[in-house]
């Protein structure tokens, strides 16, 4: 019984890690090898059902879906990581300054974040993509901006909690510079919450990219992107179901893995919910 319980507690961690490591391996392989060229078209071979040659079948241009899913991991990680990068850097800066300095700066920064949050994310992303233009980097910038408020809030509340603690006061007394207090002393203490938030951001970025693709924007073809493939496959939902289940499954599995990992990290780091 004990054994099972322990195993179950870690099931999120195990599955989450397996999924992410699995996709990472696929991504690394895809740099050197895919069964077929991802962009070369072969229209007479379009919409073939899965076979030993085309593991997941082919799309409407006769391209190998399996190869495109493999290559799509690059897009997924590029968009996801870049989004997380932008979201956390600016989120930590804004939240950190607001929380540490407090006062009217805190008020202004956090009201800005409230306003950003009041915007439905996908709408802001839509407008930002229209401004920046589409593409992997621009999509990630748009999604990163949307991610800022959530991370800023978490960072701020962490900083507020820590700024009056004894160790911070002590550091101040011995003349440690503010930025050093903020980033060397306080930040490491709340890094666990930020890591959890960043993992969730990665997951939501995947879903948001798919939603943007649904609205016709997002990552540009012919770069294989799961979101775009999913959108394109809608027309073949009945006629060629394998086409839709490949990218749909890839997104779902990766996002699920990220969520499970974030939950595991949260349980691991937050002693209260260990129960």
């Amino acid at each position, binding site marked *: 019984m004990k054994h099972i319980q322990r195993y179950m507690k870690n099931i999120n961690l195990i599955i989450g890690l397996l999924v992410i490591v699995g996709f990472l391996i696929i991504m690394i392989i895809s740099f050197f090898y895919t069964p077929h060229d991802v962009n070369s*078209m072969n229209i007479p071979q379009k919409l073939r059902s899965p076979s030993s040659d085309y593991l997941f079948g082919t799309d409407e*241009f006769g391209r190998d879906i399996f190869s495109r899913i493999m290559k799509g991991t690059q897009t997924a990680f590029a968009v996801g990581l870049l989004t997380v990068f932008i979201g956390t850097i600016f989120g930590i800066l804004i939240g950190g300054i607001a929380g540490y300095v407090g006062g009217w700066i805190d008020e202004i920064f956090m009201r800005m974040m409230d306003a950003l949050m009041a915007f439905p994310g996908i709408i802001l992303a839509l407008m930002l993509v*229209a401004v920046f233009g589409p593409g992997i980097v621009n999509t990630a910038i748009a999604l990163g901006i949307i991610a800022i408020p959530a991370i800023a809030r978490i960072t701020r509340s962490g900083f507020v909690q820590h700024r009056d603690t004894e160790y911070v006061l002590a550091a101040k007394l011995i003349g440690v510079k503010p930025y050093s207090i903020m980033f060397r002393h306080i930040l490491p203490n709340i890094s666990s919450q930020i890591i959890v938030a960043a993992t969730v951001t990665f997951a939501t970025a995947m879903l948001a990219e798919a939603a943007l693709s649904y609205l016709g924007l997002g990552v*540009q*073809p*012919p770069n294989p992107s799961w979101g775009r493939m999913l959108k394109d496959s809608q027309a073949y939902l009945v*006629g060629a179901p394998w086409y839709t289940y490949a990218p749909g499954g890839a997104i779902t599995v990766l996002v699920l893995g990220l969520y499970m990992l974030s939950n595991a990290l949260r349980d691991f780091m937050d002693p209260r919910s260990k129960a």
Partner: protein
Amino acid sequence: MRLKNNWSLLLLTLIVVLLMSACSNDDKKDASSGEKSEADLPQEIVVRINDDPDFLDPHKATASISYQMILNIFEGLMAPQTDGTLIEGLAESYAISEDGLTYTFNIRPGVKFHNGEDLTVEDIQYSFDRLMGKNGGEKMSNSFDNVASTEAPDANTFVIKLKEPNSNFLYSLTARQSAILPKSNDGKHNENPIGTGPFAYVKYSPGTNLELKKNENYWKKGLPYLNKVTFTFQSDDQAAIMSLMANEVDLTSVPWQRVSEVGGNYNLSHQNNNSSLIVTFNETKAPFDNIKVRQAINYAISKSDIIDSVFAGYAVPLGSNMSPAMGDYQKKGLGDMYKRDVEKAKALLAEAGYPKGFKTKITVSSHNEIYSNIAQIVAANLKEIGIDVEIEVVEWGIWLDRVYFGRDYQMTTIDLTGRASAYDILNDYISTNDSENFFKFKNNDYDKIMADVLKERDQAKQIDYYHRAQEILAEQAAAVYIADYQIVWGSKKQVTGLKNYPFWFHDMSEVKFSN
């Protein structure tokens, strides 16, 4: 302990039961279908349209999608036919003077507007004055700049005098360009549109639908058949086809890829859209100012690949900017001018000074995935001859701004919407037609032919001119003329009487349900 456990389970079962019972009313519809007497047949139709109309006021509207619906409400002096020719509409007969400058129309008697008022020559005068900005308002169209004067010598006659002869002028007199509106409704043409057409306006709910009802006093006796027409707006093609399957709409376009799914259970009609889907270039920008580059691209792009994968085969390849839907006006045989030939394309590219190809960008709109799909094939095809094409997908609004109006682009793809008149189709390429010539095509011979054709009154000779114009476009490789894609209309088996026009118009006047 047990009890509470059951409690939550109970709730769950309750939800499931609720959902199930909600679903259990099915098959009601199916049971009622089957054979029915004529009297039981539906008298109402629901037609799915992609988007809202821009305006209901026919003088203000410009989008094809608006006319697709509102041409059921309005009529002009002339009426379009399915073969692209014109017949008399609100004019019972007409005469053109020898010099081609004076058009005299006899007004059809006994025509009533939807508000019950009789159509009078004042209404016609009012409508043209409104279009030309002579009522004190702004000019609403450029189509009548060539009109010298209009007058109504008596209650049944309306005369239009032109400044210069224009063999295409009658095409400006359909409801598409000059719908006849009642003077008494001035100022309310958009809020409460009134016309003389087979159906009358009932209600417009933005984003939802446009409802029309039967015009009981329609001058064509016995028409229309239906009591009510609802145009319902649904932007997602995939969702729309499911609505057809779920019996929520009676008529919708079917995405090409899904034609086989609906095949047996629905009537399918294939309409040659009369549009020209083109891949085109900014012809003042290097390297596209070089005809050899344009020809090389023409040789490199595989029309059949595009037709097969993007349109699932439901498209007719083109050779110039004219669809076979235009009948005799189309110059046949141009489709073979640039048979796919990668070697020749490479050679031409080398001759033009780009032996290693070049980098370029194709900017396409996101409002329909066909454009980005075509761009993908174009990119793959051109890669074979060394041209590296980056694809940029932008919103429709940005595309219009940047490409169509701003002309700040290198390559693009778009379908040029069909018109009933060959002249209106081909005039896009006239170098002085600054508003439409977004490819910046300039060819003096072409300009001259298009000017001459307006002065020609003999139809056979007009056709010769139009044929020569099409040849020039092909020879000059003004664009890559890909295809006229078909619109496949799917409708319930019982729906009959649909007519296909060479432009966007859902003519509901003769539609009815029958066994």
